[in-house]
């Protein structure tokens, strides 16, 4: 049973390290949109900070002492690791505790966990990144990689959709990405008449360009219903299922494929995912309530 190549698996870490969090502190608290912020963490032990590496698409279990843990994707540049960025939406007990963090507050970190976007294996390909809502943060590390290695990739298109213009993330970075020859196409589900951009669901953006299925890879992240229709459009355009990568979310507790909560069929989303080639999960993804 392989989802992504063994090379994409996280390196084994000692078990003791995996069960107990390592301490970091809040270096910066960056509000983004309503009910959502990016927190930047720095490990308290500089040696740990130096040794910590991650790949685009991986996540950390962030521990708020007294509240519990939440699985949050890493949203920052994998080559700039003095601080690690996590974009967090405040929806439950733990994440609401995140919303109250101040600079210097302690946060426990376990990770990084999970498989990553195989962007280094896709050199020479045209890359379509399709993100919806809070699905953009896990893809942003891929964008940083592409910016650093632009010549290694063909056409790069970012399709990004959110509910309303006020829900768009990282808007100040779009210009920089466009300047690096990334075709950034933005759409919202609904808008008022001050919005000059596109209105419509993100999967329909596929109708606005042509792709060559022989050299295209799609990476998508967002609500599962959105992923379903992005995959639908990619398949309609004959992108092979092995080159459509999706990032899934399930209830995660341990992060290491041990506690069972995050299973989708035979896969533990925390260790066999969260990034999967669609070919691997195809038998299970569309089974309702599986």
């Amino acid at each position, binding site marked *: 049973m392989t989802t992504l190549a063994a090379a994409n698996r996280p390196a084994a870490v000692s078990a003791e390290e995996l069960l107990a969090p390592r301490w970091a502190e809040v270096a910066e608290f960056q509000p983004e949109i309503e009910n959502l912020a990016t927190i930047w963490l720095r490990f308290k032990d500089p040696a740990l900070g130096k040794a910590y590496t991650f790949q685009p698409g991986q996540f950390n279990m962030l521990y708020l002492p007294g509240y519990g843990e939440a699985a949050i994707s890493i949203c920052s540049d994998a080559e700039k690791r003095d601080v690690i960025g996590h974009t967090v939406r405040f929806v439950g007990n733990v994440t609401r505790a995140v919303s109250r963090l101040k600079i210097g507050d302690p946060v426990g970190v376990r990770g990084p966990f999970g498989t990553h976007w195989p962007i280094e294996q896709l050199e020479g390909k045209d890359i379509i990144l399709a993100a919806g809502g809070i699905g953009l943060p896990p893809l942003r590390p891929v964008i940083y990689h592409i910016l650093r290695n632009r010549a290694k990739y063909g056409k790069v298109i970012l399709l990004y959709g959110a*509910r309303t213009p006020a*829900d768009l993330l990282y808007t100040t970075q779009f210009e920089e990405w466009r300047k690096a020859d990334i075709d950034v196409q933005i759409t919202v589900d*609904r808008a008022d008449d001050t*919005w000059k*951009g596109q*209105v419509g*669901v993100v999967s329909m953006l596929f109708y606005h360009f042509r792709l060559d299925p022989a050299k295209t890879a799609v990476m998508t992240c967002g609500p599962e*219903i959105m992923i379903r229709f992005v995959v639908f459009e990619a398949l309609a355009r004959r992108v092979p299922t092995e080159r459509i990568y999706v990032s899934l979310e399930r209830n995660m507790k341990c992060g290491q494929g041990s506690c069972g909560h995050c299973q989708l069929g035979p896969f533990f989303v925390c260790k066999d995912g969260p990034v999967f080639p669609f070919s691997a999960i195809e038998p299970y993804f569309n089974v309702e309530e599986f």
Partner: protein
Amino acid sequence: MGSVPVTASMLCSLPIFSDLTDKHVGVIAAITAIQPFQDGQEIFHEGDARDFLYIVMEGRVALEMHIPNRGRLRILTVEPQEVLGWSSVSDVASKRTVTARAVSAGNLMAIDAAKLHEACEKDPVLGYAVMHHVANVIAGRLLATRLQLLDMFSQPSSEAPHG
């Protein structure tokens, strides 16, 4: 607004006309004109007669509906090479169902709907080809509308049940 007549060769490059015969393309070219538009210009209003079937060539047109107390809501935007105003070839909507407002400058191809209807009646082969394409446009809009209805980015409801 000035409009510019259209030649068959201009139409051939559009996907909606890609599998029409040259003869049919010529029939449509004769009843089509190019209409430029300005940013903010209203192309048609909800309730208007459905006089033209449009194809956006350049620029972006937003579809809006006005809701009392809530104002104008943008429900969809139409991009280059997409059809605008399918109601003109459907009997379901006897008037325009939305307002179309340009959000940039650009131009449209405007096909005279009444004359198109006549041409299709006379030549069922042309009629089938046109309706086929329009059916696809409407199907695509239906899917898009359903997905928008799902409100897939709505904020989730709060707490986990204990345990």
